[in-house]
Each structure stands twice: as C-alpha cells, then as structure tokens.
C-alpha cells in the first residue's frame, strides 16, 4: 500500500448543512458548559440553546435563495426550499420547547437538568438533518439521533411515569428502527443505491412489478408510521405523551411529526414516485386507520395529555390524507397542515403545562372544571387551541383540514375525505367537552386557584410564551394567504 497515490479530495459544498453544524456546535457548547462549569445556571443553558436555534434559523433563511447544486456532500443533503421551510418550522418549535422547558424546570422543584438544552439541540439537529437528507443511510442516522435524544428527554425527570414512558418509547422505537433499516436494505437490493435521487431514476421506466422495491417501501412505511404515530403503529403514543414532562411532549408531538413527515415526503414523492400506484393504497389505509382510531379512542380518555395524544394520532391521519395526492399538491396540503398542527399542539400542551402545576398533578380532564373562573387566560388559550384541533373556523385547523380534504378529493380519494370529515365531527365532541367544562361549570371548591400554586410570575411568563402559537393559530385561520405563497415555493423538491 505504501507509495499509492493520494486520491483526489471529493468536492465539498457544505453551506446547505450550516444549520445542522450550528446546532451541533451549540449542543457541544452546552454539554461542555454542563460538564466543566462549577455551578451551572439555567439561564446560561437557555441562552446557549436560543442563540444556537436563532443562528441556525438565520442560516436556514439564507439558504432560501441557494442556487448551487440541488444535492451536496456526495448527494447526501438536499438544498431546496422544502428543507428550508421544514427547518424553520422545526427551529421555531425547538425555541418554544426550550422556553417552556426552562419555565417547567424552574418551577417544578425538580433538580435543574442541565442536559435538557443540549439534548433538545441534539434532537433538533437530527430533525433538521432528516428533512434535508437525500440519502436513506443519512435519513436512518438522523432518525436515530433524534430518537435517542427524545428517549432520554422523555425520561429526563426520573419520575416513575417518565421512566416507564422512556422505556416503552425506547423498546418500540428500536423495533421500528429495525423495520426502517430493513426497508433501506430492501430498497437498496431493488435499486442498487441508497441515494434518494438515484433510487427514483432506477425505479422509473422499469415496467415490470418491482416486488422487492414495494416490500422495501412497506418496511420504510412501518418505520415512518411509528415515528409520526399513525395507526396501527400508534400504541406507544398515549403512554409516552402522558409520561413525558409536558414541555417535552409539546416539543416532540410537533417536531417529530414535522421531521418524520418531511423525510416521508422525500421518500414518497422522489424515491418511490414511480411506484405511486403501489404506495397510495398504503398511505390511504394508514390515514383511514389513524383518523378513526385516534378520534374514537380520544373520546374515552380522562387525562388531558392522553386525550391530546390520541388527537395527535388522528392528526397524523389527516396529514396522511393530504399525502395520498402525489406530487406538490399533496406536499402543499401536508406542509400547511404541519405548520398549523405545530402551532396548535405546542400551544395545547403548553397550556396543559401551565394548568398542571408542580409535579404535574392536575392533568385530569376533571381538573379543568371551571378553569375560566380560576385562570381565565389559560382557559381562553386552551379554548383557542382546542377549537383549532377540532377544525372549527376561524382557526388554522379549519383551513388545514379543508386543504388536505380537497387534495385527497382532487386525487380521487373522496371516500377517504368522507371518512375524515365524519371523524372530524365525532372528534369535535371531546374537544368541546373540555371547553364546556371550563366555561359552563363551577370549579370544585377544593381546587386551589392556579396563581396560589405556582406564583403569578411563573404563570405569566409561561403564558406569554404561548402567545406565539396562539397568534399563529389565529393568523393562519383568518389570513391563510400569508403563508400559502411560501408553501407553494417550498413544495417543489429538488433532486
């Protein structure tokens, strides 16, 4: 081997990866601060996290006008506007998660967990990487990075419920990762590549049935369905969303969906676009199962976090409904839904965090009885988010639902749209039940008012954070046009 010529250096264009690099650097900084500082301050952790997220957002924005190659770094990373928009959404959710988590740990009486910020940045970097990934190997690695960070975040407080949730999430998540990896192997066997663009080329024009590719897609779909918590791979969701600390539930319910759907869209609409007739029924079935199971089981819940978890399963189904339409029509509907869903789910779980108080004692639906008297602001916020989740105008949820249903109908899947409409009406019941409890009933005499419990300052700053998702939910509901143009530009995948 000695004396062999040095091979030429591969061409490296790393600008499209800048957001992830920034996040990784700041995650390292937070980790080293936690390890090396004698006494760590929660405010320093929060600042490290927020500065990292804002800088990553800035570099993402700069990439909006990127006119270099479509894929860089050995065709591993896509540089398109779809990736930029998904990243920005993820980073906003991450910032909200950091702020809510800071409030939560400051008041919960738990020991300040210095690992919260670095782990959340780890998860975010995995998520922003996965929406830009153009190579299934990298998609898998990003999926593992975000999953590992989320398992640990779930068990961060060390409470019994949190530990149990983390354990369940880990076991089932590892199982689904195995499916995903097997799917990558099968897709590689069928096409001889793991690059998404090359895979699309290899599958185009092959007239005969591609049994192996279809099997690969099916296994990949299992992995994705688990991550977006689509039925019948949703079993972990209620336990994990209930057991995890509420700000972390808020973060992961929104961000994991955005990330996994971002990656799924690239797999559906680029890698397997030639097999659209084969994957459409799979997406159809997942969507129908999710809306029905999520909506029906939510009715029976007595815990708010659990109810919102089932609602999140139903919303995964609505997004999948939009994705039955191949190409940019489906992407537009799904992207709008993801933006709206991120705003309303972060808001809803954030309000749950405000109401639940120290040690998450007040998370039963009964605890919301008469909330309008004891905490009118939290009740108003909760009402807004629940109306949006139910899809009632003039909220973002309504426009989002109209978009996905019309995309499905245009693609010829009107039965699925009909199922979606019927289950939406049924689902409105359990959202409205909470609103009725909050406004129409007197509080239980024993229930202490919230302000006594956590102090006015903590409550006000947590509520101030929730103004952001609340504003987004209303704005997107009343003036959806502000974002339609952006989403249209972002709905074209470059490859």
């Amino acid at each position: 081997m000695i004396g062999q010529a040095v091979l030429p250096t591969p061409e490296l264009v790393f600008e499209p990866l800048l957001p992830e690099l920034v996040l990784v650097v700041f995650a390292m900084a937070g980790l080293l601060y936690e390890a090396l500082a004698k006494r760590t301050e929660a405010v320093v952790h929060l600042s490290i996290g927020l500065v990292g997220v804002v800088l990553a957002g800035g570099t993402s924005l700069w990439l909006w006008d990127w006119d270099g190659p479509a894929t860089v770094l050995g065709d591993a990373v896509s540089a398109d506007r779809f990736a930029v928009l998904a990243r920005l959404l993820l980073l906003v959710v991450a910032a909200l998660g950091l702020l809510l988590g800071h409030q939560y740990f400051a008041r919960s009486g738990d020991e300040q967990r210095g690992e919260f910020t670095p782990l959340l940045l780890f998860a975010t970097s995995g998520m922003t990487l996965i929406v830009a990934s153009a190579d299934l190997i990298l998609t898998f690695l990003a999926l593992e990075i975000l999953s590992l960070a989320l398992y640990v975040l779930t068990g961060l407080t060390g409470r019994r419920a949190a530990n149990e949730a983390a354990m369940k999430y880990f076991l089932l998540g590892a199982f689904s990762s195995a499916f995903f990896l097997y799917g990558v192997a099968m897709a590689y066997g069928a096409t001889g590549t793991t690059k998404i663009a090359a895979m699309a080329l290899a599958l185009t024009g092959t007239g005969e049935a591609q049994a192996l590719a279809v099997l690969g897609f099916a296994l990949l779909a299992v992995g994705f369905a688990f991550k977006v918590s689509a039925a019948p791979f949703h079993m972990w969701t209620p336990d994990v969303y209930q057991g995890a600390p509420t700000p972390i539930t808020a973060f992961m319910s929104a961000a994991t969906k955005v990330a996994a759907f971002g990656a799924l869209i690239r797999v559906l609409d680029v890698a397997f676009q030639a097999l659209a007739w084969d994957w459409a029924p799979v997406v159809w079935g997942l969507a129908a199962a999710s809306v029905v199971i999520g909506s029906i089981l939510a009715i029976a819940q007595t815990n708010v976090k659990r109810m919102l978890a089932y609602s999140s399963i139903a919303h995964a189904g609505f997004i999948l409904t939009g994705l039955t339409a191949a190409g940019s029509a489906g992407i537009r509907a799904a992207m709008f839904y993801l933006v709206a869903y991120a705003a309303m789910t972060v808001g809803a779980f954030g309000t749950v965090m405000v109401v639940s108080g120290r040690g998450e004692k007040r998370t039963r639906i009964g605890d919301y009885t008469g909330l309008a008297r004891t905490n009118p602001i939290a009740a108003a916020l909760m009402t807004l988010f629940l109306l949006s989740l139910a899809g009632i105008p003039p909220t973002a949820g309504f426009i989002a639902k109209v978009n996905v249903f019309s995309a499905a109908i245009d693609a010829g899947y009107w039965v699925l749209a009909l199922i979606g409409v019927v289950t939406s009406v049924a689902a409105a019941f359990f959202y409205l039940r909470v609103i009725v409890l909050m406004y129409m009933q007197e509080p239980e005499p024993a229930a202490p008012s919230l302000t006594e419990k956590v102090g006015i300052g903590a409550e006000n700053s947590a509520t101030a954070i929730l103004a952001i998702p609340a504003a987004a939910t209303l704005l997107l509901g009343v003036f959806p046009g502000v974002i339609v143009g952006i989403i249209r530009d972002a709905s074209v995948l470059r490859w």
Partner: protein
Amino acid sequence: MTAQEYAFAVIAAVGSISAIAVVTARNVVHAALYLVVALLSVGATFLLLGAEFAGWVQILIYVGAIVILFLFGLMLTKAPIGRDTLDNTHRWVGLLVAAGVFAGLAFLIQDAFPLDAEPFEVFHGSTSVVGESMFRDFVLPFEAISFLLLAALIGAIVLARKDEGN
C-alpha cells in the same frame, strides 16, 4: 457443489439451529450463548459472501460486545435466571408471524434474484475497499455516526442516574 457451497450449507444449518435454540431455550443465559453461535454464523456467512469487513465487524461488535451487554443486563435486573421463566402465551402468534415473514421474504427474494439469472459481479468487501467508500462517498453519514455515538453516550449517562423525582 463447490467448497463454498458446502461451507455455506454447514454454516447455515448451524446458524438456523442455534437461532431456533435462542427462542426455545428455557434458560435465558443459555439463550444468550446460543445467540453467540447464531451471530457467529451470520459473520461467517458475510465472510463467505466476500464481505470481509462486515463479517469481522459482526463478530467483534455483536459477539464481542452486544451479547456481553445482554449478560450484564441479566445480572443487573431482577429477572429470574433459571428454568421455565421464558414461556409466554404469545408464542404461537409469534411462530405464525415468523413463519409468515419467512415465507414472504423467501418468495420475494427468489422472485427478485432468480437462480437462473446472470451471476452478480461480486464486490469483494475488503477493509480497504470499505474504507475508500466510507471516507470518500459517505463523508457525512460517517460524521453523523460519530454524533449518534455521542448522543448515545450522553443518554446512557443521563438515564443511569438515580431517580430523584420520587
């Protein structure tokens, strides 16, 4: 049959039998030891296929580390180590699913790569070939692995701490 095919027959038989023994063993430690044999035969199959690096990684990581962690796990938990502790009522469902998956995969793979097809150009996966590919074509995934390992390490430490919340 050639020498390679004989070798494959022997390795496949040993691997399948020990894999079945893993799930039927009554003693969980025995199951772990059968797993060593099963994983060794997978490694040997990789070697037979010319995937030298993958074969040795399989042996070093899985046999050398993962199974050891299994045994550690058995000692760390209160799980009883002994006879008759591994039975569970879902075993027939599991058998059915396993048989179904096997039949499906066997059909699909022989459908995709029929015996009378053109033989493949076999890629000899020696360590240097793997190295060139990994460090030139897969630069980013390689660095992502490092980040993944970092996340795993932090996670292991954070979760191993005493639970103070209760």
